[in-house]
C-alpha cells in the first residue's frame, strides 16, 4: 500500500490547479451574468427605441390604457391584435395567484411530511416516504400539467361545481405537487440535522415526542425550513409547462381563484416561438423574462437574508 500524500510537483502546477478550480466556480456566476445581460439587452428597446416605445413603453405596460378612442382605460394583454395591447398586470396577477395557491397547498404538506418523516416515522417508514416524495420531483412537469388538464380539472369541477374547468386552483395545486418535494427535501434535511443532544435534553426534561418536535426541533430547524419554502416559491413562480397546460391561460383581471389565469412564464413559452425578431412583442417578452429573473433573484436574496438572521438568532448571537 502506498501512503496517501498530496504534494504538488511544482508551484506552476499548483497555481494552474487552483485557477482551474476557481474557473469552475466562476462558470455558474458568469453564466448567470451573461444570461441576464442577454435577456436585458433584448428587452432594452422598450426603454430606448422610439418606434417600439409607441407600442410598448414602460407606462403602457404598467398602467391602464384606453386603446380605442372613448374607451374606458383598462388592462389588456392582446399582443396579436391590430392594436397590440401589452398590459403586464393581468399576467402578474395570474402568476401571483397560481404561486399563492401552490404555496398554500405545498407548505403545510411539505413541512408536515418533513416533521413526520424526521421525528415520528419508524426507520423503515422513513425509507419508504423520503424517496417516494423525492420521486415526485422526478416527474416531468409536462406530465404533471397533462394530469392536471385531464384528471384534476374534471375532479375539482365535479366536487366544487366550478364554472371554469381550468383555473388558478387547478394550476396551483398541480404546481404545488412540483413544489412539495423541494420544500420537503430541504426541510427534512434541516430537521434531521438538529443535534440529537438537543432532543435528548428535551426528553430528559420530561417533554413528550410531540413537544420535542414542535417546541424544540421545529424552531431550531426554522432557517432550513424557511430556505425550503423560498426555494419552493421560486419554483412556483418560474414553472412553465404545468401552468401552460392547466391554467387556461386567459389573461384576465379577477381576484377569483376559480377563474383562469395566465402567468409570465406560460406567456413566454406560448408566444416566444412565433414573434418576429426585434418587434415590440419580442422585446416585451424579454422584458417579462427580465422581470421574472429579478423577481426570483430578490426572492432568493430575501430568503438568504432571512436565513442568515434566523441562524444568528438560533445561535444566540443577536439580541
Amino acid at each position: 500500500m502506498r501512503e496517501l500524500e498530496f504534494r504538488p510537483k511544482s508551484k506552476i502546477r499548483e497555481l494552474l490547479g487552483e485557477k482551474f478550480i476557481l474557473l469552475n466556480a466562476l462558470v455558474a456566476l458568469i453564466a448567470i451574468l451573461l444570461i441576464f445581460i442577454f435577456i436585458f439587452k433584448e428587452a432594452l428597446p422598450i426603454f430606448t427605441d422610439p418606434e417600439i416605445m409607441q407600442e410598448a413603453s414602460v407606462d403602457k405596460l404598467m398602467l391602464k390604457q384606453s386603446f380605442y378612442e372613448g374607451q374606458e382605460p383598462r388592462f389588456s394583454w392582446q399582443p396579436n391584435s391590430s392594436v397590440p395591447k401589452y398590459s403586464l398586470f393581468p399576467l402578474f396577477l395570474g402568476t401571483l395567484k397560481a404561486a399563492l395557491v401552490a404555496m398554500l397547498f405545498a407548505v403545510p404538506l411539505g413541512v408536515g411530511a418533513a416533521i413526520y418523516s424526521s421525528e415520528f416515522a419508524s426507520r423503515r417508514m422513513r425509507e419508504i416516504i423520503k424517496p417516494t416524495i423525492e420521486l415526485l420531483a422526478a416527474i416531468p412537469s409536462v406530465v404533471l400539467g397533462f394530469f392536471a388538464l385531464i384528471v384534476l380539472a374534471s375532479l375539482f369541477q365535479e366536487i366544487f361545481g366550478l364554472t371554469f374547468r381550468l383555473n388558478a386552483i387547478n394550476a396551483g395545486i398541480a404546481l404545488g405537487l412540483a413544489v412539495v418535494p423541494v420544500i420537503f427535501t430541504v426541510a427534512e434535511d434541516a430537521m434531521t440535522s438538529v443535534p440529537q443532544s438537543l432532543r435528548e435534553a428535551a426528553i430528559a426534561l420530561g417533554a413528550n415526542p410531540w413537544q420535542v418536535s414542535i417546541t424544540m426541533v421545529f424552531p431550531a430547524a426554522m432557517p432550513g425550513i424557511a430556505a425550503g419554502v423560498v426555494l419552493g416559491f421560486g419554483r412556483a413562480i418560474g414553472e412553465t409547462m404545468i401552468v401552460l397546460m392547466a391554467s387556461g391561460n386567459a389573461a384576465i383581471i379577477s381576484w377569483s381563484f376559480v377563474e383562469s389565469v395566465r402567468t409570465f412564464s406560460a406567456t413566454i413559452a406560448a408566444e416566444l416561438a412565433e414573434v418576429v425578431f426585434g418587434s415590440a412583442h419580442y422585446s416585451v417578452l424579454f422584458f417579462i423574462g427580465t422581470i421574472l429573473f429579478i423577481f426570483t433573484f430578490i426572492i432568493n436574496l430575501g430568503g438568504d437574508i432571512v436565513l442568515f438572521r434566523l441562524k444568528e438568532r438560533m445561535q444566540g448571537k443577536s439580541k
Partner: protein
Amino acid sequence: MKKVFLAMMLMAAVSVMAATTITIKGSDTLVRLGQRWAEEYMKKNPEAVIQVSGGGSGTGIAALLNGTTDICESSRDMKAKEHDLAKKNGINPYRVTVALDGIAVFLHETNPVNELTFAQLKGIYTGSITNWKEVGGPDTRIIVYGRENNSGTYVFYKEHVLDDEDYSDYTQTLPGTAAVVNAVAKDKFGIGYGGIAWAKGVKFAAVRKNDSSTAVIPSMETVINGTYPISRELYWFFNGTPTGDLKNLVNWALSVEGQKVAEEVDYIPLPRELAEKNLVK
C-alpha cells in the same frame, strides 16, 4: 486498419445524410399529415430521410426565413411583414397548396345547441355573448377555448370569424388542437375550434354564414364543394422553386396517391384539377 474503416463508415453515413435529409417544420394542424406523407414517401424511396416537426405555422415560417428548414408547413399565408423579412434574409418563398382544411366549431356532445351563425360565433369569441341562452341553449356561462397565438388556426379564425377583432380576455388558450378538443370533450358548456381532422369525443356545430343561409356541418364534401364557410388552404412553403428531392416529394404529395394519404388521415384532398395545377414543373 480499424480506424480507416471507422472513418469510412462515418464518411458514408455523413454523405448519405447530407444527400437526402429533408426537414419539414411548422403548422400543428398539418404535422400529422406531414408525418404520414413522410412515412409513405420514405417507404417508396428508402434512400430519403425526412424529419417532420410541428410548433405552429409562425414557428415554421420563422424557420424558413432563418433557413433552418427545407419545407415550412403553414395553415395560413405569409404576412406582409414576413415577406419583407424574407426579402431581407435573401429567402424567396414559393407556395404550394397541398390540402384543404375546414375549421370546425366543437361543442360538448350533450350541448343542445346545434347550429351557430357567424355573428353568434363572433359574439361568443369577442365576449359580447357570454351565456348559452343567448344562442338558444341553457342558462349557463359559455366557456370559450381557443388556440395560443403562435397558431395559424388562431390567426385564421380571428381574421375570418372575428373580422380581426380581439378575442375576449376570457378565451382560454391551449397548446394544440388536441388539447382544445380534449378540454371541450370534458366541458359540458365549452366551445372550441380547430381542424376537422382532430375531433374525437366532441360534436361539430353546423355553421351559417348569415341568417338567410343554411347551416352546414363541416365534412369532406362540404369543404370541397365550398358550402362550409370556415375553410382554408394548407400550404407548403419552399425557398425558391423546389428542385430535385424536394420537387419529387411535393409532386408525390399532390399525386392521386399522396392525396389519398391525406384523405386517410381525415384531411381534405384537393380537387384533382387544382392538385394538377399546383404540380411543380
